[in-house]
């Protein structure tokens, strides 16, 4: 890592040490949703003011005009604080950059800077009840009408749709074409008539996901991003924007150190659980995995620094961390026995093993374990693609 980036990290760390405490940890304890969201917007605006908000976006829209690597470094440092970042987890990472790439200039000026500052929040309306990993099989219909399109159908798993002002959406404009070829990409006002947002109650208590229903929602044609029937390309491009996501190295669950502490205090057959061979083997395995993932992460950053695209590092990381978060959680609960079934009051998945276990979505969202294994097998190991009976067949004639 070169000297300039080291300096960047030191500056970021010092800046965060000075500014982050007012927006994190104690400052957030017990805040109602609305107040936490307001704090999140304030933190975003504050970062933008100091050149740390939307680091890779152009300055004319309020971004910092920085590099991908600077963004990764800042994220790594920022993650050390318990900041309210989650409401922007989608908004700023994918919909905003793709909008700034494709939208008409007047729209960019109108929405860009306000989104960068956190005043506007965006959602990404991609998944549908029968189009998750197989995104191109989506059915939300867009029918041409005077001056634009009428959207009808349903989206699901839409993060933060309930607080979103704008959204990007992919819809089927021509069902007589093969599934990838008949899609078109739009951006739309989430307050448009005909849109209904319904929250989804998750296994854990996270309040992020929604179903979104479209009943003849009008979208002007000037809000189309990309070509008519060229939407799949834009969707893939959207997903590729976050080229290398920085993730917490415990998969947003409790750390290995937390696990060791617990094993030191819990008792198993009358002795400290830390003496148990299975517990010890698990600690060693997780330590080794973390060590290997650190090396892989560093290699990815070095590739970035040389201007290369990152490899499959992200997939390995997500796969292993997702599983470990769950298995460590379950083993931690085992060590506590019957008391392991409690949820700590005001606990969070990052500190509470039961809550971490209760949210296995890291292994589903953004690609299931199976899909990630396919990606590694096909893209890295060069194995054949899965059998796809709907390939090349008109969408409305393909086996459902």
């Amino acid at each position, binding site marked *: 890592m070169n000297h300039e980036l080291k300096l960047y990290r030191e500056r970021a760390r010092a800046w965060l040490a000075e500014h982050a405490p007012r927006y994190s940890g104690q400052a957030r304890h017990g805040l109602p949703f609305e107040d936490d969201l307001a704090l999140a917007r304030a933190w975003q605006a504050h970062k933008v003011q100091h050149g740390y908000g939307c680091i890779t976006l152009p300055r004319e829209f309020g971004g910092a005009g920085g590099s991908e690597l600077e963004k990764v470094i800042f994220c790594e440092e920022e993650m050390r604080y318990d900041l309210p970042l989650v409401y922007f987890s989608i908004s700023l990472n994918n919909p905003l950059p793709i909008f700034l790439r494709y939208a008409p200039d007047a729209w960019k000026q109108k929405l860009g800077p306000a989104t960068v500052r956190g005043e506007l929040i965006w959602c990404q309306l991609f998944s549908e009840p029968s189009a998750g990993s197989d995104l191109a099989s989506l059915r939300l219909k867009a029918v041409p009408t005077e001056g634009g399109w009428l959207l009808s159908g349903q989206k699901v798993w839409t993060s933060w749709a309930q607080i979103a002002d704008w959204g990007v959406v992919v819809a089927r404009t021509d069902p007589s074409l093969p599934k990838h070829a008949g899609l078109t990409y739009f951006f739309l006002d989430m307050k448009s008539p005909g849109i209904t947002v319904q929250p989804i109650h998750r296994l854990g208590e996270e309040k992020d996901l929604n179903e979104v229903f479209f009943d003849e929602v009008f979208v002007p044609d000037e809000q189309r991003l990309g070509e008519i029937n060229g939407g799949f390309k834009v969707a893939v491009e959207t997903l590729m924007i976050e080229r290398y996501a920085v993730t917490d190295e415990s998969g947003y669950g409790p750390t290995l150190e937390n696990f060791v502490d617990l094993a030191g205090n819990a008792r198993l057959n009358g002795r400290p659980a830390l003496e148990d061979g299975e517990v010890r083997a698990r600690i*060693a395995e997780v330590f080794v995995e973390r060590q290997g993932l650190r090396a892989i992460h560093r290699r990815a950053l070095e590739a970035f620094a040389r201007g290369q695209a990152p490899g499959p590092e992200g997939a390995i990381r997500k796969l292993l961390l997702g599983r470990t978060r769950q298995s460590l959680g379950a083993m931690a609960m085992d060590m506590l026995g019957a008391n392991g079934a409690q949820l700590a009051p005001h606990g969070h998945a990052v500190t509470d093993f039961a809550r971490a276990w209760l949210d296995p979505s890291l292994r589903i969202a953004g690609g299931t374990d199976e899909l990630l294994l*396919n990606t590694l097998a096909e893209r*890295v190991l060069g194995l054949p693609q899965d059998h796809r009976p709907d390939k090349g067949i008109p969408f409305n004639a393909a086996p459902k």
Partner: protein
Amino acid sequence: MQADHAEDLASIREQARRLLQDQATPEHLKSLLNEPGSFDRVLWHHAVEQGWPSVAIPESAGGLGLGWSGLAVICEELGRLTGSLPLIGNTLAAHALIHAGSDEHQALIDSLTSGDAIATLALADPSESGLCGSSSAQVRNGRINGEKALAAFAAVADIALVQAGNERGNGLYLVRLDQPGVQRRLVEGFDNSRATALLQFIQAEVTPLGGAELLGEIGNLAALATAFEQIGGTQACLDMACDYARERRAFGQPIGGFQGIKHKLAEIYCLLEIARGCASDALDAWEQQQPTRRQLTSSARIAAIRAYNLAAQENLHVHGGMGVTWEAMPHHFYRRSRSLALELGSLAYWRERLLADLGLESATALVG
């Protein structure tokens, strides 16, 4: 790492790959498996010609000065073809002798780095799955008595680095194996090409080389270099299994198109990358003498054993019936993955060593 150093390493790798591809042919490797205590003298001869035993030795002691990275590169290439050479033993014996005082031992150092002499690492005890514990081999008044567990290249070695106890604890000793007090016994094993033998000492002469610290260092460096050999083996199994899965067809498609096969291979890839990451971090830590080098080495050892175990086993499985025949290659890796996992202490031993390095003392130390 210096840029010119990197170039040297790349050229050593290329050279090693070419030589091994020429020499370590399947037929040749199979002939070695037939007899207990087999040693690949032809390959050793070629390796010596190319200077491999001296790669890691400092230039001041007559070596090529490429450090542990140099040894790692060759070990990885050896692992890819299940070649078996006493490079780790020779390198570490020379290293220990340099540490003990090179003036006194220069002649022996020279014959180790030139390949004229062969060294074996006889660290493990017959009744101990790790490298620690009280050694049943004991040194009194400059003489050693006792036995060591099956050691690679002990069948053909001229000297042994032996872990043995004395009045003050365990230490590392040099034992010349051509003396009357040494008996070596060949045994039939599943990986006969490792030239393994049991060693028994009856009043054999020894030269003390160092105490617990040197002992620990030798065990660590041997484990680190072996991790690269295991990584080479893992990569070879993965490559072989992927090639076969792309070729072999069933139910009208290549078997590599089935998720049951694809996912198995992707899992191996993940373990391989974790092992690579751990080993390269450990290597850097040794090159730079960082205080974390011990725990990083334990991690590398654990990760390499896990990766190679899975890769060798599943490679055999992907090959189906072919995988369990003498004719096909998968069994070479299956054998080697196990012998490398057993030499230098088992997985459970390294797990406890890692936990001890992390401050989570051994289970017994926690009692009371």
